């Protein structure tokens, strides 16, 4: 009895992981198409999906290149967005408890989606199962669909190009959305920072080289700093009890 419950629990975790991986992986079509339209070769687009494997950073990189941005701005925006994977890793390190080469390999799959399904599970075994099943499904579909999108984009006419131009901002909005809705961590601060980011980026667009306004938008986090006399040097530090969101 106990073992059959255990089996069905494991099956559920694997099913959830693969389901999420498949759905999100399809989004790679948009990435592959955007990348080639931005001037990358099919090879470069595929290499990004294989080796970078973190969607928002990949989109930021090609988005900056598409607007004629500098190499510095392209790499900088990808790295700034990549910092959130560091925080995910901090959370996952205890749950997964990988050592040695397993840790080196697992790091490649530390992204939004795998973190979301992994932290839901309790215990090392189910956490690892969730991480590996979602990670492998995502990795497979993300890479297959990147190639499909990159090859497909070469035959795009103006109407499909317009559709693609419209999909890119929508994709960023979909990535941003969970941070702004009810139940999100630090929701109030996230909203303030998001509005600030939009204002900074649009205001600086006419004056900065393309892509730099995205990096400058990171300064919007300063809007969420609330120094207190007791805590005046703490910068971004969170005051106990000051947040409406759940604790991280």
């Amino acid at each position, binding site marked *: 009895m106990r073992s059959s419950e255990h089996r069905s629990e494991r099956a559920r975790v694997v099913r959830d992981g693969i389901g999420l991986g498949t759905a*999100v992986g*399809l*989004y790679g079509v*948009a990435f592959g198409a955007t990348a080639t339209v931005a*001037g990358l070769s099919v090879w*470069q687009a595929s*290499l*990004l999906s294989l080796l970078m494997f*973190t969607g*928002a950073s990949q*989109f930021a990189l090609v*988005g900056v*290149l598409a607007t*004629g941005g500098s*190499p510095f701005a*392209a*790499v900088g*925006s990808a790295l700034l*967005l*990549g*910092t959130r*994977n560091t925080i995910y890793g*901090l*959370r996952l*390190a205890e749950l997964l408890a990988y050592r040695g080469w397993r*840790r080196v390999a*697992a*790091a*490649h799959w*530390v992204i939004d989606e795998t973190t979301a399904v992994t932290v839901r599970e309790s215990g090392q075994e189910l956490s690892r199962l969730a991480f590996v099943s979602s990670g492998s499904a995502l990795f497979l579909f993300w890479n297959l669909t990147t190639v499909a999108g990159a090859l497909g984009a070469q035959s795009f006419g*103006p109407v499909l190009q*317009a*559709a693609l*131009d*419209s*999909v890119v*901002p*929508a994709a960023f*909005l*979909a990535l*941003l959305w969970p*941070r702004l809705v009810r139940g999100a*961590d*630090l929701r109030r*601060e*996230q909203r303030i*920072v*998001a509005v600030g*980011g*939009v204002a900074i*980026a649009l205001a600086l667009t006419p004056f900065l080289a393309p892509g730099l*306004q*995205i990096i400058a*938008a990171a300064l919007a986090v300063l809007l*969420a700093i609330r120094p207190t006399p007791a805590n005046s040097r*703490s*910068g*971004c*530090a969170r005051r106990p009890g000051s947040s409406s969101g759940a604790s*991280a």
Partner: protein
Amino acid sequence: MSPSTVWIVVIGAVVGTYLLKLAGLSVPPALLKRPLIGRCVELIPAALLAALVAVNALTREGALTVDFRLAALVAAGIALALRAPFIVVLLVAGGVGALGYVVAG
């Protein structure tokens, strides 16, 4: 940008983003308890993603531009508010954008 510069950008960003991932799994857990780092990193993506939404929807070649992309973005926002799955949001945006392009020329 020359092809070799694009390669440097691709390789530099690949190495950098991987090291950021590995750092999270490798640093002592005590760092997680430091709210200063945690909160800054937790908020930076919101600023960047919002900026990327705005710049990709509302600018073209360094100038503010309102066109079919804004209609598509509004449609995507409605789809998200209705809790549509990711892929549906993208299809809605693409469809509305293409329609807007055809209608508005």
